[in-house]
């Protein structure tokens, strides 16, 4: 949750800063570029004007040089070939004009005819290319290296003509570069690092600069102007000591040199840099202020949301008693109101549910108590029923014991001889007593089965001998009624597992029924495998059973009205008990019958088992 909570703040902060930073930075960038360029142009203009002033001074000096030579030639009335001009006159002129170091006259062959320096007379100067200008008016040579003096000089000259106008020679003045040096050394308007100097077309320093000697050869970008007609230009370059320079170049045509005015960029643009750095600091300050402001704003915006989220968390954690604050901004307070209403309703619903639940629980508890009481009563009555049955069985048998016992003793004649009528009546007593005993046993059996108290055994026994034994026990009865009695057991049927006594009980019941209800014909017993089990069938030639009576057969106390009503003694429980016993043993009982022809009762015993689990 912490990560999600901070994200809304960070987003606010982020967009706030982006909105502030982007225009500010863009503005600043444009401002920086503009001021930088403006600053540099300013510097160039300044350097250019300094250069122009110095160029003017140079032009003035050059004019003075050529004017001075012209003046000397006029004063001396120099005639053809300069003949007659004495060395002394020239010396006087030299002193008078004081611009030159040496004055001399050359003939058209370039030989020095007369000179203020005696040693130079007779030398030929024509080996220097640019001396061709000596024979034109107002000529000043570019600076050249004077081998004699081992330094740079310039020459100003005026041609000497014959009266016919033919050029016969030239008056020339040799001047050193002290004036140029002085002009170049003037530093007005150049600041700490600025300087001006002259460089020849061939890259030779004409005036010394701060770090370079005169005559030194330099390689400066753009200092050797090859383009004609370019009088001045501006550039920036990195000088040999690695300092970025802002420079203005002026082409001084008469001297064939470049006037360089330069200043280190750092100094030249220092004001701009100051402005820029101030600007940067201000911007950083603004960003800090804006960041702090946006942090505060984003916090104040996010805090109600945070509070709201915390409340929602508490409620989702199960504490329904907290309420969201409703005093935030409009949107939030609307939300909080709706939320609180929701919580209140939820609380109501929950307490309703709880009430329902408690009510249900108490109902269930009450019902459980009732059910337990009912169960106890049922168990109690069941127990009472069982003990009642046991007691009743005992109580009924005890008098029967006396009846049967004494009737037997009397019937055996142990007490004394009986006449025929006495014997007959005693026989009725005996058969009634036995019937009563049968009834009691059957009722007890069916009660035990219904109470689930009757258990069947699972023991191995010899099946054929059981059948034979049972059939034999019924034989006297069949013989008495002149009925045939047949029994056939499939030879493959041998040992079975189950409750021998109960199987015998079932078979005996079916046999005695068959004998009881059959008046003519006979009874047949068949035993054989059916699937894995054994089927035992008892067929008789009795009256048969009507289809509508079949359902009644296996119900307790149902004796069929078959026209011979109540002629046959029986409890009416036999078949019902047989069916229940077979169910307990996992078997079934079936009946087929054709009324008037006979019935076949059969039961199926499962293979090798007695009782189902």
């Amino acid at each position, binding site marked *: 949750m912490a990560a999600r909570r901070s994200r809304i703040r960070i987003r606010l902060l982020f967009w706030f800063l982006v909105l502030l930073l982007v225009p500010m930075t863009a503005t600043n960038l444009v401002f920086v570029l503009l001021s930088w360029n403006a600053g540099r142009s300013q510097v160039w203009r300044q350097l250019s004007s300094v250069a122009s002033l110095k160029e003017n001074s140079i032009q003035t000096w050059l004019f003075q040089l050529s004017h001075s030579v012209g003046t000397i030639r006029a004063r001396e009335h120099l005639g053809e070939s300069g003949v007659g001009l004495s060395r002394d006159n020239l010396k006087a002129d030299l002193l008078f004009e004081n611009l030159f170091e040496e004055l001399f006259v050359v003939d058209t062959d370039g030989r020095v005819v007369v000179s203020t320096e005696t040693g130079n007379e007779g030398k030929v100067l024509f080996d220097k290319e640019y001396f061709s200008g000596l024979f034109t008016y107002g000529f000043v040579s570019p600076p050249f290296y004077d081998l004699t003096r081992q330094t740079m000089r310039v020459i100003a000259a005026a041609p000497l003509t014959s009266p016919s106008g033919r050029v016969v020679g030239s008056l020339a003045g040799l001047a050193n570069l002290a004036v140029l040096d002085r002009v170049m050394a003037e530093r007005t308007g150049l600041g700490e690092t600025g300087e001006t100097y002259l460089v020849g077309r061939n890259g030779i320093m004409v005036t010394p600069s701060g770090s370079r000697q005169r005559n030194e050869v330099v390689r400066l970008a753009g200092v050797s102007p090859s383009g004609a007609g370019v009088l001045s230009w501006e550039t920036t370059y990195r000088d040999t000591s690695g300092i970025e320079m802002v420079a203005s170049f002026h082409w001084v045509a008469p001297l064939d040199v470049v006037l360089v005015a330069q200043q280190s960029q750092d100094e030249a643009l220092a004001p701009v840099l100051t402005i820029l750095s101030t600007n940067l600091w201000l911007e950083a300050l603004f960003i800090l202020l804006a960041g702090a402001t946006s942090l505060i704003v984003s916090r104040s915006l996010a805090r109600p949301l945070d509070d709201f989220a915390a409340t929602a968390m508490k409620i989702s954690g199960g504490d329904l008693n907290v309420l969201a604050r409703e005093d935030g901004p409009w949107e939030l307070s609307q939300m909080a109101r709706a939320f609180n209403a929701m919580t209140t309703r939820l609380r109501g619903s929950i307490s309703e549910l709880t009430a329902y639940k408690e009510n249900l629980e108490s109902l269930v508890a009450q019902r459980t108590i009732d059910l337990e009481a009912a169960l106890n009563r049922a168990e109690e009555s069941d127990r009472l029923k069982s003990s009642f*049955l046991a007691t009743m069985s*005992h109580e009924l048998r005890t008098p029967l*014991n006396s009846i*049967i016992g004494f009737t037997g003793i009397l019937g*055996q004649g142990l007490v004394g001889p009986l006449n025929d009528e006495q014997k007959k009546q005693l026989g009725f007593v005996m058969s009634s007593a036995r019937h009563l005993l049968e009834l009691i046993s059957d009722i007890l059996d069916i009660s035990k089965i219904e109470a689930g108290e009757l258990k069947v055994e699972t023991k191995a026994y010899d099946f054929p001998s059981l059948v034979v034994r049972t059939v034999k026990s019924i034989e006297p009865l069949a013989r008495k009624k002149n009925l045939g009695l047949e029994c056939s057991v499939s030879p493959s049927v041998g040992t079975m597992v189950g409750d021998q006594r109960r199987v015998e009980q079932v078979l005996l019941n079916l046999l005695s029924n068959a004998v009881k209800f059959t008046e003519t014909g006979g009874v047949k017993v068949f035993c054989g495998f059916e699937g894995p089990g054994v089927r035992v069938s008892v067929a008789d030639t009795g009256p048969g059973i009507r289809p509508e009576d079949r359902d009644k057969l296996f119900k307790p106390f149902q004796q069929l009205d078959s026209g011979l009503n109540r002629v046959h003694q029986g409890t009416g429980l036999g078949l019902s008990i047989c069916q229940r016993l077979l169910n307990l043993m996992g078997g079934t009982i079936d009946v087929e019958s054709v009324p008037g022809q006979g019935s076949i009762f059969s039961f199926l015993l499962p293979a090798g088992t007695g009782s189902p689990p």
Partner: protein
Amino acid sequence: MKPRVLIIEDNEQNLYLLTFLLTMNGYAVDSANDGRAGIEKARTNVPDLILLDIQLPIMDGYAVARAIRQVSVLAAVPIIAVTSYAMPGDKEKALESGCTGYIEKPINPETFLSQIAVYFPSDETGR
């Protein structure tokens, strides 16, 4: 010497029936109406066989059988439970308590004698 049978039975008619049946068939019969008297009689005059009813006053037949088996001189005497109890487990309960045999009431006078005869030692079966 007649084989001696002790009958412990509280029902007068049944006691009479058994006594009559046995006496008529050459047995010497002694009887008691409750368990305690029966045990005393058996102790003082050791019988050859005891016929024991299960439902008795004061102490029931199971307890009587257990008590008789505690008496050393009576340890080998066969006890036949004669009872009308017919609930499942009654027979097993009787045998567990020390009875030797079990005959269900009502008795059949024609077969009763042969039912008890098997429990006498062979040299005393002659009636």
